[in-house]
């Protein structure tokens, strides 16, 4: 056994549906004890991939090993060690939070008690509330609590914070970080860059059913030719042709009436930009710079934005 055995390993995974190649030759290795993020836009194949790894969807081809076991013959044994939270699954609305947790706890031979789970996810006050009366954030925490009912070695979370308000998101992040700190493994999918940067030791960028880049968030960002972003707006607006002529500027895109320019060196790019704007009689309204994020990594890899909202 190697020093860090793989919690998840899959090779040449394929899943084709009638009209789309959802997963198209995907290799992945997640080490025990790390939090790994599958990153990509909607429809990239993240959910199909995670459901294949969870043993809920059968791949058309490829090999999957989870915690040293395979789906099929060792399914039941494997399920005792996994926690799963699905995207958009709805728990029974007529049950209370406590009843829901007792039900899920009953499925596992070993696990955490409903009381512990309530405490873990700060749901004590909602103990006797019906699931139907919970807010979105509370429901999502309950879903994660259910996934933790068997005190799993490996936790799968499919878009755990999609649609949540910032505070609920923060609460869940804390809980997932605490779970990982106890030496467990997490595989999550997300299309929030911030989530991946905060939680994940490593991420894989998925697009069209393949992994197009993988590594730690810092590595991926450092791998960009232009690790800085200049964000500005002018009055009147300037057009792309003007910006294309400025030396030291890489990818250019617009969002909310602002330009975002990727640059290798700020010392070179910013004076050149200011000079070009003055020459064009465009007055700067705002100007800021920041380090590139995973979002910029995704854009430089695919030429598309990650979020469609």
């Amino acid at each position, binding site marked *: 056994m190697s020093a860090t055995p793989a919690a998840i390993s899959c090779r040449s995974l394929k899943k084709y549906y009638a009209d789309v190649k959802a997963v198209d030759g995907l290799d992945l290795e997640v080490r025990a004890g790390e939090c790994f993020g599958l990153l990509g836009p909607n429809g990239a194949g993240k959910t199909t991939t995670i459901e294949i790894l969870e043993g809920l969807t059968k791949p058309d081809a490829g090999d999957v090993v989870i915690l040293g076991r395979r789906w099929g013959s060792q399914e039941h044994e494997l399920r005792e060690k996994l926690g*799963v939270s699905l995207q958009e*699954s*709805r728990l029974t609305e007529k049950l209370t939070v406590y009843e829901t947790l007792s039900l899920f706890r009953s*499925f596992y031979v070993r696990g955490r008690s409903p009381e512990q789970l309530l405490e873990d996810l700060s749901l004590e006050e909602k103990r006797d509330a019906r699931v139907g009366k919970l807010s979105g954030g509370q429901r999502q925490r309950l879903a994660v609590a259910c996934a933790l009912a068997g005190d799993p070695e490996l936790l799968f979370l499919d878009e755990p914070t999609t649609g949540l308000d910032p505070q609920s998101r923060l609460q869940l992040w804390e809980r997932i970080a605490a779970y990982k700190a106890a030496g467990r493994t997490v595989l999550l999918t997300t299309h929030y860059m911030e989530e991946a940067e905060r939680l994940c030791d490593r991420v894989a960028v998925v697009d069209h059913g393949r992994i197009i880049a993988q590594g730690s968030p810092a590595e991926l960002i450092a791998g960009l030719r232009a690790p800085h972003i200049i964000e500005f707006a002018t009055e009147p607006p300037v057009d792309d042709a003007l910006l294309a002529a400025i030396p030291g500027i890489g990818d250019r895109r617009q969002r909310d009436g602002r330009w975002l320019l990727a640059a290798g060196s700020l010392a070179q790019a910013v004076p050149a930009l200011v000079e070009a704007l003055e020459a064009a009689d465009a007055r700067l309204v705002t100007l800021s710079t920041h380090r590139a994020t995973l979002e910029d990594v995704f854009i430089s890899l695919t030429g598309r934005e990650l979020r469609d909202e």
Partner: protein
Amino acid sequence: MSERQHPLAALTKTRLLEFVREPEALFWVFAFPILMALVLGFAFRDRPPDPVPVGVVDGPTAADISKALAAAGTVKPSPYGTLPAGLEALRTGKIALLVEEPGGLNGPIYHFDATRPDSRLARLEVDDAIQRARGRTDPAPARETLVHEKGSRYIDFLLPGILGLNLMGTGIWGIGFSIVNARLKKTLKLMVATPMRKSHYLLAQIFSRFVFLVVEVAVILLFGVLAFQVPVRGSVALLCFVTILGALCFGGMGLLVASRARTLEAANGLMNLVMVPMWLLSGVFFSSERFPKAVQPLIQALPLTALNNALRAVMLEGHGMAAVGAELLVIVLWGAASFAVALKIFRWQ
């Protein structure tokens, strides 16, 4: 850990809680069959047949005839001033027969439509009453013994049918909708991702049915016995056995109906496809013997027909196990086959 429940117990409890927290479900399972029995029971309650309305045309003997008819009690006379007025009433169906005796005591004339059974009956009753009133004596007077036995009334026929209908409805609806709903909301998929045994999930559906079954059967039977004195002549243990088999059978059919459906609409359509023919054919409201001979083997092979026949045999006729063996076999076969196929083709996601 001690706080862990057995998964089968936890799943069964979950189903029960879901059910009792759904007021509509409670109404359809418990209140609806009773309302139905109540309405139908009163609509078809025992009472003497209404006197047949007849008309008497004005004439010298009209008053005497009316008096004789009223005294006999089996027909209800009303006077008409002229013959055309009486004939008009006859033609429009207000009366079944018109009596006329123009010129006094020379024998009545009866106007009626011989193709109408109530008119022919009125002819006999009216003539009998008039002839007796005028002094006819019968050479061999008849005596009457009126039969009025509990167990042969419509409500007695109806109640076991409603019991069977309810076992079918709650089995198929109760199990079918809950499963399709869980599939639709992906709760089923979420549970499949845990070490839950799939057989536990399906068994819990059936087990939770037994708890409702006890209440549901007790409520309907007690209502029938207390409100209408419907007899339970056979053994109560056998009656329980028959209802349990019936509930299992329809539980299995509920699983089968819900085994593939992905939407509530699809499930609803399938349930109607299964249940509506049995509502009509299986002798719930009227005897299935009324359908043509050619289709009888088909009708008798339906599980609800078998269940209704067995319930009636035990409740009304006091038959034992041997007499309902064939029916029980039909019920068991349907249940076992449905359950086996459902397990085989069940869609867990």
